[in-house]
């Protein structure tokens, strides 16, 4: 069966999020004064062939560790749907 793993990748606390900062400034300039903070990350959707949800999650995690995420600067969350 094919599962969809949704991976969110974001910068670790302590790593300067230049893009988030720039987006925040732009939005505030556009009049969004109620905006307190912005962080920008990646959203990666993986369609994985697997026996079950758990197996799909495990594979998604492997993909994160092996390529999708640089753990020196980034963290990630995985959610599996089908």
């Amino acid at each position, binding site marked *: 069966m094919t599962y969809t793993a949704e991976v969110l990748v974001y910068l670790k606390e*302590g*790593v*300067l999020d*230049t*893009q988030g900062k*720039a987006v925040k400034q732009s939005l505030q300039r556009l009049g969004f004064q109620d905006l307190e903070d912005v962080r920008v990350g990646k959203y990666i959707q993986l369609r994985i062939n697997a026996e079950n949800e758990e197996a799909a999650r495990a594979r998604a995690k492997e993909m994160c560790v092996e*390529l999708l995420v*640089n753990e*020196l*600067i980034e963290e990630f969350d995985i959610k599996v749907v089908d």
Partner: protein
Amino acid sequence: MRAAVVVFPGSNCDRDVIHALRTTVSADTETLWYESSDLPKNIDLIVLPGGFSYGDYLRCGAMAARTPVMKAVRRFAEKGGLVLGICNGFQVLTESRLLPGAILANQSLTFICRSCTVRVERTDTPFTLGCRENQVLEMPIAHHEGLYFLPDEEISRLKKEKRVVFRYCGPDGELDDSHNPNGSLDNIAGIVNERGNVMGLMPHPERASEKILGSDDGALIWNSLHIWLEKGGR
């Protein structure tokens, strides 16, 4: 000198590096395809050239770092072989953990292509032994991701171990924010590994290796490597 220049899909400075190696130090130079897991015999130097390997998609250098050739490059480096990563090549080296740290988007969030000045912080590496201590070299940069980053504790270790080889500086060697083009930590433009045989460098020496291009300071790096090898690699 026998050199190999790696070609990843999307590399675009491979021919430039080959031209510089051939014209400045008459190096015997060939290309090395990213899928090969063996190296040619008797190679002295491997260059990972600049460009946009895999389109710079996901993270710069991330996909190139996981190609077969990089396993071979790692073995080569572990045996003491000389490896130079320029720009995207530097990103490949950090992504493959041959060098510490990560390279993030420029503070300006724009691509920056212009001439820069960098200060030589060490002259006892194979890449810089032809330079003078604190010599200021003019070499262009051309990148969107050039901000060198390491967590606090590690950066102090890097500095203690004197692993920073080049720093962005002013025309007289001044180290300050106004001469830091991309927001790199501590003005870092180039570093080496512990053993000193693997260097990552953001500016492009191959673009500054002939007077007609505006500067030939970059040739000092090729010359240093040449001298180092002539002396038997010491």
